[in-house]
């Protein structure tokens, strides 16, 4: 397995990073998080459509760029760094991943190109966001694909054209496609801690749908791993931003006649944070390589999700603490990342759940 990024991958990072710095400054993030939609369609079209970011990890046959989890991770990391507002996780990562893992060939060919070009906004409806083990308990499908049940939290459902639903059909799990204007579909936006990522409650009351594939426990797990690995990359990007801005702040802020960064308590906290982020970054990058090599991916993805979430929260706590009072204000941008860190920490499994999953996998392999 390659340890380092190729020149092409490095170039991808540079381009994405430059574009996001320009298109997603904190002022734009604040504007979008306060809006109902939560993102700017023009920016979405430019970055995820024209520049092809939504399809970076999708096969060329479906209009994607033909990259893998590594390329997806690069984009997610850079988006996490700037807190990019847009349905990238929901549409490209979750729905795109679900189609790749579970949809029939014909449905993939029909649905993926829209996602790859950013023209379709899709999301994935899961009735459990804690662990793949619990998925399928609350939404049921009839043989004709009529859905009923509730998903308590769905990412970016309020802007989705297409909802891909994982539901229990008989004794197995199926993937069902629901149009946004389907009857019996209720999408109720929820009040959330992290306003840069919107959630809704989605209720199906005899909602018509089309079954587009079957999920095995294995493909559901693989889907979960893809999402967790991408989310871990996003978290590493956010952690890195907080870390850099915090270290910079300690060099400027003076107390007791000296920069606060000269106080050893703060230096040591920063050194420890650097170590924590570097180790989490290493296992996060590793998870993408494992997915692309189809080798030990559940274990690696859980390791990444647990480590990145802990590192992001450490960075977020330090970012506020080391700024003092200003760090606790609404006006200062730090809380935006703190809230993203908190939301990401628990989305798709808390660190404790992922550590338990690692151990279960380890024991079943032994």
């Amino acid at each position, binding site marked *: 397995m390659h340890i380092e990024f190729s020149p092409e991958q490095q170039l991808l990072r540079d381009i994405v990073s430059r574009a996001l710095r320009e298109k997603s400054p904190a002022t734009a993030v604040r504007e979008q998080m306060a809006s109902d939609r939560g993102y700017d369609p023009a920016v979405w079209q430019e970055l995820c459509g024209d520049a092809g970011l939504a399809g970076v990890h999708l096969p060329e046959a479906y209009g994607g760029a033909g990259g893998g989890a590594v390329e997806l991770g690069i984009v997610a990391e850079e988006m996490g760094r700037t807190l990019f507002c847009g349905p990238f996780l929901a549409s490209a990562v979750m729905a795109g991943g679900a189609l790749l893992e579970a949809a029939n060939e014909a449905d993939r060919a029909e649905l993926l190109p829209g996602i790859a070009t950013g023209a379709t906004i899709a999301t994935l409806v899961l009735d459990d966001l804690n662990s793949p083990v619990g998925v399928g308990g609350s939404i049921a499908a009839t043989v004709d694909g009529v859905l009923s049940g509730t998903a308590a939290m769905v990412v970016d459902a309020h802007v989705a054209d297409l909802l891909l639903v994982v539901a229990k059909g008989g004794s197995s799990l199926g993937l069902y496609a629901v149009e946004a204007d389907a009857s019996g579909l209720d999408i109720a936006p929820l009040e959330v801690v992290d306003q840069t990522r919107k959630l809704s409650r989605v209720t199906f009351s005899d909602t018509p749908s089309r079954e587009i594939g079957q999920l095995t426990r294995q493909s559901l797990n693989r889907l979960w791993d893809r999402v967790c690995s991408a989310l871990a990359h996003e978290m590493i990007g956010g952690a890195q931003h907080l870390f850099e801005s915090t*270290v910079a702040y300690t060099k400027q802020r003076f107390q007791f006649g000296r920069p606060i960064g000269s106080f050893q308590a703060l230096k040591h906290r920063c050194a420890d944070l*650097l170590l924590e982020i570097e180790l989490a970054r290493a296992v996060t990058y590793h998870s993408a390589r494992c997915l692309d090599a189809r080798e030990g991916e559940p274990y690696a993805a859980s390791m990444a999700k647990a480590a990145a979430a802990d590192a992001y929260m450490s960075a977020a706590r330090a970012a506020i603490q080391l700024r003092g009072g200003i760090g606790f204000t609404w006006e200062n941008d730090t809380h935006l990342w703190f809230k993203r860190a908190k939301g990401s920490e628990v989305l798709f499994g808390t660190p404790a759940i992922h550590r338990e999953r690692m151990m279960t996998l380890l024991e079943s392999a032994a």
Partner: protein
Amino acid sequence: MTPEQIRREVSAWLDANWRVDRPLIEWRNLLLEAGWAAPHWPEEWYGRGFTLEQTVVVVEVFREMAAVPAAQVGPRGLASETILACGSDDQKRRFLRPILTGEHTWCQLFSEPGSGSDLAGLSTRAEFKDGNWILNGQKVWNTSAHHADFGLLVARTDWDVPKHQGISYFLLDMRQPGVEARPLRQMNGHQSFNEVFMTNAVVPPEDLIGGEGNGWHVAKTTLSFERRGFSRRVRGSTLDGPKQGPIYEEYEEELRIAAEPYTWYPQREGRVDLVLPRARETGAIADPATRQEIAKLICLHTGAKLASDSAEAKRKAGTTDIIPEGSIGKLAASVIARQASLVHTMISGADAMLSGPESAADGLIAEILVSVPAISIAGGTDEIQRNIISERVLGMPKGYRADQGPFRDIKRNA
């Protein structure tokens, strides 16, 4: 040369020359002449200018053919690398060969009772009198000093300049009346380190390395080798296959003495390898709280391994790396060792009270618990690594300094 070419050449050479009835020193001299003693060194100094990967191939073939390699255990590597990097040709000629043949063992005489972290605050005195350097003072925590033939020693030669500028670096002959090493007992019961007293010890002028007043620069060279090697220290290589014959007896005896101070070193790193087998054996693997801590340990350990592989790859590719591998790697090793120690305690439960043969894994578990505290002190404490990372990597401002100006005027331990 490709790995296959190296493999072929080493095997052919060993086929022609390796004999178990040769005396050890005679064998090692053959190795030196052939360039197999230190393949990563330059050709004029017993090497072949190999890269690390090429050297690894040589080591592998030696192990597979159960051929005894050049002497490696203990601080002799610090000595040879320092002399190779900073020594004169005359010093390289006199010292490198017996280090590789195993005739000379070495120790590191840096720390003093009054200066450990603040190495440059040392106060062992060296004065030039009647054509020789005369040394007086005390060193401490010096691993292997009780059996070493030579020591790497830093001493103060000028008290009227700022502290880093008045230091000189010496290659000290330990076998002389003016040098006395007394073993110290450690909290884990082992006696690896010593205190060393110099009373009018003599160093001839040709054994000053790097020039008078230049000792700090040479010391930094030694320290960088030490930190870099911390997570992947070369221990005595174990040889595959049956080992019958006189040369193995000599080799075993060498290892017995030279490796003895280091038998507990794997334990101070926390023995992550023992965690899962022990957890399964005791049934602790079923305990949810223990599972959480084991998984945390695995995340740290895997992350550190991947991060160091990636730093290594970057170093090879020549791309600049903002991360000084040494300090981050050393701090990571401490964090991992502490987490491993916590996990071993959870796994053992009340049995963690037992020690020696009463303790699990033939006493190893108890040894882990009382050896881990060393890893965050030896080779530069965790706090010092954090200072280095924050100031040199992150560029955070230095704090107030109380040790500027002539060394003579600086407050220090009585």
